[in-house]
């Protein structure tokens, strides 16, 4: 317990977290501080490329073990199942109608890659390693949740929401393609490839993450200021409870697969996190009637900060306790 608190405290005063806090505070104070859209996208391309590449190199280094395929399957299964859990919980806890509940649920089945990145950097800080293929698991978990949520809606007799265009858009979503592509490049070029570009993708990584989180803080803060009103207490509570439930699913999967401490922790982080890029875009196409303020504010303004500050150290402590025990 004490260990968790120390970890959480040292996590809280890292430049990464404080940059996010700065962004939130600036937005709430209505400062005109803002990161240009192009710069934010550029940083996200950098982060996805770097994290995918490093994962691939680590797979090239340690070789593929049989757990890779199983972990991918487990990730996909989690992404399919978690929205159903989330949907049920939302219908219980909040007054959201089917459409809004399904849209929110899709976000919680999918993943937030920045939460994953923050998790890996916390592992690094703690001197732990995780399976390199967890990056591929992250990519695999992005999309299935969307299908799950649309299935929940279509069960309600609300017509077909999916067509082949949307399916292609979801599968070849930019962040999935970049993450998987960089992962494969890392696998193919291995340590030799990394040596060529590590002063670009390794050394400045934490710093870029700071500025990216500053921007996420600004966007989250703006969202809270403008859309915070839609978050009734029940919904708010869901934004903190659901990650914990997700983390339990992730814990079970990670331990069942026999992953390392780091791997279990990342599986928990993925399951606990909620999408704020791929899923919102898909929801605007497929469920335009659902209110974006709800799912965006909840995912980015509540669950993301919760995971970033308290969730991640907690998941690490639990993963450490369970895998060592």
């Amino acid at each position, binding site marked *: 317990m004490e260990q968790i608190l120390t970890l959480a405290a040292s996590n809280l005063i890292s430049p990464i977290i404080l940059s996010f806090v700065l962004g939130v505070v600036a937005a709430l104070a209505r400062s005109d501080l803002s990161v240009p859209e192009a710069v934010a996208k550029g940083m996200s391309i950098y982060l996805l490329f770097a994290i995918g590449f490093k994962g691939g190199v680590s797979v090239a280094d340690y070789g593929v073990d049989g757990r890779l395929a199983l972990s991918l399957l487990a990730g996909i299964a989690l992404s399919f199942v978690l929205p159903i859990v989330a949907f049920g919980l939302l219908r219980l806890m909040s007054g959201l109608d089917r459409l809004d509940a399904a849209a929110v649920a899709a976000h919680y089945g999918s993943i937030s890659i920045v939460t994953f990145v923050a998790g890996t950097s916390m592992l690094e800080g703690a001197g732990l390693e995780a399976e390199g293929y967890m990056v591929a698991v992250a990519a695999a978990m992005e999309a299935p949740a969307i299908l799950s949520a649309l299935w929940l809606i279509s069960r309600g007799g609300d017509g077909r929401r999916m067509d082949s*265009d949307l399916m292609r858009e979801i599968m070849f979503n930019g962040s999935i393609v970049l993450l998987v592509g960089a992962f494969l490049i890392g696998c193919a070029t291995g340590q030799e490839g990394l040596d060529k570009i590590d002063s670009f993708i390794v050394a400045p990584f934490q710093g870029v993450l700071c500025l990216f989180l500053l921007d996420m803080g600004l966007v989250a803060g703006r969202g809270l200021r403008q859309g915070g009103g839609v978050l009734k207490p029940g919904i708010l509570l869901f934004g903190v409870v659901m990650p914990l439930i997700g983390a339990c699913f992730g814990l079970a999967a990670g331990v069942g697969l026999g992953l390392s401490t780091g791997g279990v922790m990342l599986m928990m982080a993925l399951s606990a996190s909620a999408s704020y890029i791929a899923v919102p875009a898909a929801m605007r196409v497929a469920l335009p009637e659902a209110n974006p*303020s709800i799912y965006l504010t909840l995912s980015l303004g509540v669950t993301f900060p919760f995971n970033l500050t308290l969730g991640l150290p907690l998941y690490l402590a639990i993963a450490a306790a369970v895998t060592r025990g």
Partner: protein
Amino acid sequence: METHKAKRVAVIIEAVMQSRLTDAMEDAGVTGYSVLPVLGGSGRSGAWSREGQVGRGQGMVQVVCIIAADKLDDLLTKAFPVVEKHIGVVAVSDCEVLRAERF
């Protein structure tokens, strides 16, 4: 100079719907269109801004299309189902063009 009557259709629509709208427009025999960025705005569903956004979920664009007046109704009929359930605005105005054969 000689000018010719035409219609200017401007649709402000979510970025995720852009290709669906332009597909529908091409379906309606439109010979050309341009896409303009929109930085932000406000409407019944609240205010939004492009700043710092990474995903396409929250952005909007303006699709502008100059067409011959007789193609207007077909265009609106084909485009309407795309915009119907989505937030956004469709505005049509009169204009004059050079080189009428292009539209």
